[in-house]
């Protein structure tokens, strides 16, 4: 289960709760790192670390809800499981809308917690895979020459080779040549796959089309 070296950050101001949760997660083989406050978490957290956040909604200083907001603003999509002694409906609605995995009411059953953590890990893995894919496509696009990118933009826009040649004032043969190189560099098996890749990274952006 911890094959990917995942870790659960526990943020609760009550050390007894932190300790108990760590103990329980440890007993089922999940690595946990307790933090006494939102500030302590931000110091210890490593962006590269896979895992999730088990966060008390009510904390002295920066509250759990505020921490979620801060992470979201910073573009961090670490999955968050909220927990509280008494959650009111507006608060639950707010954090769930902001993308929380689960909202647990203390005290909770082991199965609830484990299930939520597993969900969070699955979500985190998917997120990471997605990020990796996007990253690699972007790298491939970056490796294209200026001319190849122009050709790819027109190809993915659905133009025929002849039209592209006209547009770029090239011979049709040259266009075909560029087109094959694009397919190779992008490691795309078909035009459809190339289009999907571009869509995934939203390429070309609105600026590129205009130019």
């Amino acid at each position, binding site marked *: 289960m911890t094959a990917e070296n995942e870790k659960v950050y526990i943020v609760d101001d009550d050390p007894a709760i932190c300790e108990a949760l760590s*103990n*329980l997660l440890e*007993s089922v083989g999940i690595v946990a790192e307790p933090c006494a406050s939102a500030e302590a978490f931000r110091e210890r957290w490593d962006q590269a670390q896979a895992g999730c956040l088990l966060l008390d909604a009510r904390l002295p200083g920066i509250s759990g809800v505020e921490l979620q907001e801060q992470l979201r603003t910073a573009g961090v999509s670490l999955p968050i499981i909220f927990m509280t*002694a008494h959650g009111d409906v507006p608060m639950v609605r707010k954090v769930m809308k902001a993308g929380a995995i689960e909202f647990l009411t*203390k*005290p909770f*059953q082991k199965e609830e917690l484990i299930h939520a953590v597993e969900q969070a890990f699955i979500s985190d893995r998917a997120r990471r895979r997605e990020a990796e894919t996007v990253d690699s496509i972007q790298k491939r696009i970056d490796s294209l020459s200026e001319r190849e990118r122009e050709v790819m933009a027109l190809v993915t826009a659905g133009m025929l080779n002849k039209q592209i040649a006209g547009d770029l004032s090239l011979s049709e043969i040259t266009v075909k040549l560029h087109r094959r190189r694009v397919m190779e560099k992008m490691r795309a098996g078909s035009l459809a796959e190339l289009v999907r890749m571009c869509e995934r990274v939203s390429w070309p952006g609105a600026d590129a089309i205009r130019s």
Partner: protein
Amino acid sequence: MTATAQVALSGRIVEYGVKPCMIAVFFVLIALLWTFPLQPVIAYPFVFLFFGAIMGSAWFGGAIAGGIAVVLSTLVVTYFFIPPMFSMSVAKDSQSFLTAFFACAIAITIVSSARKRAENAIRVARDELEVKVEERTAELVQSNLEIQESERQLRMLTEAIPQQIWRANAAGRVEYCNQHLIEYLGRPMEQLTGDLFLGVIHPEDQPLYRRGWQTALESGGNFEVEARVRGADAVYRWFLVRSIPQRSRKAEIARWYGIHIDIEEQRRAQQSLAAAQEHLSRLSHTLSMAEMAASIAHELNQPLTAVVTHAYACREWLRAQPANLDKASATAEKIVRESTRASAVVSRVRALFRKDVQVRESTDINRLIHELVRLLRDEAIRRDVSVRLELAGNLPRLEIDPVQIQQVMLNLAINGMDAMMDSPGPRVLAIRSNQHGDNEVLVAVEDLGPGVAEEIADRVFDPFFSTKPQGTGMGLAICRSIVEAHDGRLWLERSARGGAVFQFTVRAQS
């Protein structure tokens, strides 16, 4: 010498010289002329005639004319009638006669001129008096007009003031009401009977009003009271009735001047302010209860969460293959620790609600009830509830915490008023005190509300049980615990008139 001085001087010469001379000569000549024809008829007629001439001269011409007449008469008498006749010489035997004549003549002159002067003086004085009387009469007429004018202005002023103004005699009989007051009352002042406006005062305010008026009458001080006055539309409005006495010279009260100031709006504002305050205090009360409950729940929940979580972990450590006994044992320790922590929270909460210091004071329960009624007065007026007391005399003194017992009674009274909130009938809250058994006093609070339904009658004393939307459900529970802490009993009965009777007993001082 100036011309005016000359005229004045000549006027004076005529006044004191010529005029007296002429008068004296005129009278003496008449006397002389009458003497001759009368001489044969009576003896010595000249004596009377000349005396008459002197008297006339002195009367009409004054002392100077009289003097001249005396001299002339003496000369004429000496010449014509004193022997030797027709000569100015006087015979030896006539000298005494002449002297007597002269003396009499002088005396007549003095008396006559003095009389004349006195008469003149009286006439002058009378004239002056008449002038003075005329002047004074004119002044009186003028000041009368002024008084009338100022009275008219004063009346206009009292009518113009947008307040109700009146005047009453020393005994409080109303003699004058301004138009505003007559319009408000809707009846002429002749129909007002009794002390001042007692007849139009709200029955509930009458005792206070009468007392205030009696005090003012006895002490002669100002009278001021807030009371509801019935208007022409039979609706009562709150007024500030204020009156001051006017005193006579002898410092006795001559009349009362009064004003009715409409304070209905003010009163309403005060009431709504008080209501808002009460609402606020109730709200803050329930809020603090809720906050406290939340805080206690949180305090308890933390260790319980830890206990539950550790227990799950413990089970996992034992289920592992092979079982991790060290971890399981350490976890069990933590379960014990957290359970103890939870227990400590419970003890702390209990300590919070327990009152360790017990106050017991020797107390007169009736005095406590009277104090309570004072506390309730405003609330009762606001809710239109009349409070009736039926207190037994000669009750034994109680050994109680007066604050707590008063809280119990206050709670029961407010509950009773709440119960009558929507009651259409009369709203009467009766508070009774009675001897109960040999050694107990019973206090009963009875309302005329709908009563407590049978099915909830045995639950009203339960904590957190309430029929009111804002109720905490703690009132009667606390009341019962207070009464029981006093070795007493608090219970509910159905009133013969349909309402609820909450009554409690307290042991008397041994």
